[in-house]
């Protein structure tokens, strides 16, 4: 970890204060910041516009299912500091909801739609939270770990059978 990275971590800790649960070094010139979901918008705003921070480029936004909770993860980059930062917020499995960051980064619109589509995380304040990649009437959120493949969709059977006509469950990996 370079001296500069230590300084940046300290700066982030200072600026975010209580909002950040932990700020740690991460592989590949990255810093992992875990925040409370309620202070997510505030933290992102500070990171983007803060003096000496300026993480203005949103590289990526994703959701993940950590088995006991869901999480929403943002990857930011600061061209001036040449430093990446990853912001993670854990969400409740039953009702995963977090505020949309559309005001900060206009391009995050579709990323949030995809996260909703794949994991069911709702983004409050999003102007068009509909499914993006899957058909409108799809049920279930595929990237969740407890996702069960549907037996049929639109009247078409989704299962396969082996040579003896025994059904092969779609959920089994064949590796």
């Amino acid at each position, binding site marked *: 970890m370079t001296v500069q990275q230590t300084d940046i971590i300290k700066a982030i800790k200072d600026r975010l204060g209580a909002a950040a649960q932990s700020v740690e070094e*991460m*592989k*590949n010139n*990255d810093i*992992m910041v875990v925040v409370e979901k309620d202070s997510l918008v505030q933290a992102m705003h500070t990171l983007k516009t803060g003096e000496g921070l300026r993480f*203005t*480029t*949103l*590289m*990526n936004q*994703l959701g*993940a*299912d950590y088995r006991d909770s869901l999480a929403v*993860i943002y*990857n930011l*980059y600061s*061209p001036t500091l*040449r430093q*990446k930062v*990853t912001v993670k917020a854990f969400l409740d499995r039953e009702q995963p909801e977090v505020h949309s960051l559309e005001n900060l*980064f*206009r*391009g*995050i*619109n*579709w*990323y949030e739609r995809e996260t909703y589509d*794949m994991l069911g995380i709702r983004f409050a304040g999003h102007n068009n939270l509909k499914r*993006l*990649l*899957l*058909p409108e009437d799809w049920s279930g959120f*595929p*990237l969740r770990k407890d996702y069960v493949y549907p037996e049929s969709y639109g009247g078409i059977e989704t299962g396969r059978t082996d040579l003896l006509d025994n059904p092969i469950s779609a959920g089994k*990996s064949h*590796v």
Partner: protein
Amino acid sequence: MSKYSTQEMVLNMGPHHPSTHGVLRFILQTDGEMMVKATPDIGFLHRGIEKIAERVPWQAFMPYTDRIDYLASLNCNLGYALAVERLAGISVPEKAEYLRVIGAELTRIGSHFIGAGAMLLDLGAVTPFVHALRERETFNDLIEMLCGARLTHNYVRIGGVSQDLPAGFKEKCLGFVDHLEYEFLDEFNDMISYNTILINRLANVGVISAEEAEDYTLTGPNLRGSGVAFDLRRDDSYSIYDRFDFDVPVGSGKFGVLGDSYDRYWVRIEEIVQSCRVIRQALKQMPESGEVRTKLPKLFTVPAGEIYVRTEAPRGELGYYIISDGGKNPFRVKIRTGSFSAMTIIEHLSQGVMVADLVAIIGSLDVVAPEIDR
């Protein structure tokens, strides 16, 4: 209430559409010839690659990364391999690094031919597209010599590349690169790039300011076409790109306004020249002999952790966010592609332009369906 009123027309463009951008669908609301809005409808090519990643071992996911952008497979392979190697601390032999760079730059050239060519095809210039495809045939032959496949390369492995250079590759590659830079591109540009009709179709169309480009997370040639000089190979360097000397072409409002479609097209043409330079240097510097692959067990595990690695693919930034829980399969792989962010800006750009301009804009942003849908 006036006796006469006009009604908006709702048109459906796609998914079957004679453009080579893949299976894309747009719902156009037009008022005669001017568009009110174009709403993209994606998902026709969604294959659930991210879900598949959770069920196959680390090494076995490599062929799936080919299909993320099948017009530039090697670059997609490279990003995934880099991410896993950095997370697991696997080293890569010297010769393999050079082979990866040569393959990646060749793929960039091949992909730009299709990207620029498809846009020209949409605008009615069929001949330059066919000429570009003819050059891409040589690229296909070279890659076939290298890894045996013409489209979905699957050449990069975690820890190196799959096999060494065959005999005769170096000469053929150098010949191809020289032919491109000194013969083909001059003729191509004379034929179409400086053509007044093309300039009238592309200049001042679909102008994206640098601010807008960053706001909508555009990357790659789309971002550079708006004047932002940011190239991951130079500014967030990975692999051995810091050993090579190349320029980063940036849009400059050559025939119109900075950030219009012509700039994005011209950046791609110039990038072909720069890739030729890199390939020449790499071929010269590459060690003659050496290992091309670190030995790894077939089903290896990667220590727990998270990492985000991004590379410069021809269509933008290709980023892999990988979460590992120490198991044989990845825990979560998120693939961030350049075409996905380029699609988000189309709805915004399409307000108040003509239908013909929409086609030019989509072509100049170089979107392909597999990258958007994964």
